């Protein structure tokens, strides 16, 4: 089949399925088939347009524009996530290279990795007495494990030929790390960073319900207002933002794909 036709067809199918979904949603809600007062798609779309047309208003912490809340959440995620990546990559390289570091750190990693990052929220509040820093702290803990583990795994499974070449040329340890190991494990690092970002974006919504401000708090607030359609608006926006973030890493991964 012609490629242009096939993309156009895919696009048409996507639009069609969206239309069917919107109509079904509206019909089910209008007939009260699910529960009474369940917002229909038309009402939700109306809210979405209302929120998106003036996204950055600020009438105090309980009445912020959705864009303002989104930026607050994104800022927390980006700060906590960046700090986590800055710690995870060097630590992962160390764990991959040194048996001692591996055996002394791995027990903690294995023990802490399966714990929901939300469990750290009270700890953060107790230590920092500040919801902003606590949010960043929770995202830091969330983001660190996937990047750390992927980096360490990448180093441990690096093609020994590259290291042999480097060694045979008499390269120093720092040259080997900078010019051989780091580029060689770039795909692993990016895969870890992508998972970290995905989890961080999941966790921030839950964490913010307890922290005040941010897109997660927006949902909590609208639940208190019993405004389900606004919650749907938030869900759509969270989903869309998460998708964009994920695509960005997908793009980076393609750039650093060395496979033949």
């Amino acid at each position: 089949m012609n490629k242009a036709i096939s993309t156009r067809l895919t696009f048409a199918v996507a639009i069609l399925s969206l239309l069917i979904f919107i109509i079904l949603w509206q019909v089910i809600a209008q007939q009260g088939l699910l529960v009474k007062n369940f917002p229909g798609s038309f009402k939700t779309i109306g809210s979405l347009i209302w929120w998106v047309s003036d996204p950055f208003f600020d009438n105090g912490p309980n009445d912020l524009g959705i864009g303002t809340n989104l930026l607050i959440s994104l800022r927390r995620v980006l700060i906590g996530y960046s700090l986590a990546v800055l710690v995870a990559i060097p630590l992962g390289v160390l764990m991959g290279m040194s048996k001692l570091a591996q055996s002394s750190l791995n027990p903690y990693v294995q023990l802490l990795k399966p714990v929901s990052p939300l469990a750290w929220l009270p700890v953060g509040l107790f230590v920092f007495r500040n919801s902003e820093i606590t949010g960043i702290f929770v995202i830091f803990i969330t983001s660190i494990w996937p990047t750390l583990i992927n980096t360490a795994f990448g180093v441990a499974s690096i093609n020994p030929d590259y290291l042999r070449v480097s060694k045979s040329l008499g390269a120093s340890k720092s040259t080997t790390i900078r010019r051989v190991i780091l580029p060689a494990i770039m795909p692993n690092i990016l895969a870890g960073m992508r998972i970290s970002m995905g989890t961080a974006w999941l966790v921030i919504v839950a964490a913010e319900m307890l922290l005040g401000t941010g897109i997660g708090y927006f949902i909590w607030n609208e639940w208190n207002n019993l405004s389900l359609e606004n919650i749907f608006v938030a869900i759509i926006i969270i989903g869309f933002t998460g998708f964009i973030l994920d695509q960005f890493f997908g793009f980076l991964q393609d750039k650093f794909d060395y496979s033949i």
Partner: protein
Amino acid sequence: MNKKSSKISTSNENYSHLELINLGKIFFKEKKFIDFRSKGNRSGFEAIKDINLKIEKNTFVSIIGPSGCGKSTLLNLIAGLQAPTSGKIIIDGQAIKGPGPDRGVIFQNYALMPWLTTIQNIEFALNTVFPAKTKADVKERARKYLRMVGLEKASNKFPKELSGGMKQRVAIARALSINPNMLLMDEPFGALDALTRSYLQDELLSIWRKNKVTVVLITHSIEEALLLSDKIVLMSSGPSAIISEEISVDLERPRDREKIEQDPTYLKIKMRLEKHLLRETRAVEEVT
């Protein structure tokens, strides 16, 4: 570094370029943190033992032996990539302590860095070995060696865009670019088709003639060893492999692929090598 070692060798022509003395390598099992079964005695696998060999300057030596006998191990020791368990490696009269740019190594599977282009792969070697050289100098030199192996057009291609033969030529250019006195090659042409192989063999010979290097080549091809070498070293089957024979190949150069096969000396050595390999391979089969 390079200048120094070549100076030593010219003032001491009576030294062999490379000398292996009672060389042995035992691979010890890595001890796990929690391993109740292997208490105490560190048992190891002796790959090679009592290797004694002298290689003269600017000669071409091939090492041949049954599969798994320890050829790569021996080459890694000479390259300084692994430390011997016993014995010494003397180059230009001095015991080596580790790897060095006086030896260029060519690995079996090319070992090009996939995130670097062809020319960047060579520049990596040059930058590592000659950190004082300017960027322009390095680029110029990398180009020169790419030209030498006929790949200047592919200089901005990535390894995944090259054929096996082209990759191996880049690896050869990289190894030569640092101007080594010795070229160590581990079955460099094993994975190539017959035509590419014979083309690269000719290229290697002309490079060897022009560049004045000592070549140690590991191969499992008797024909390749006979076509290229001044001396062929035969290894016995492992474990604890030793050098069982050294054969001088007194055939005139340049050697013609077709004509050489009718040469009685060639045929005599070939028979001897075949017999040896058959016997040693049989020994491997019986052990396993």
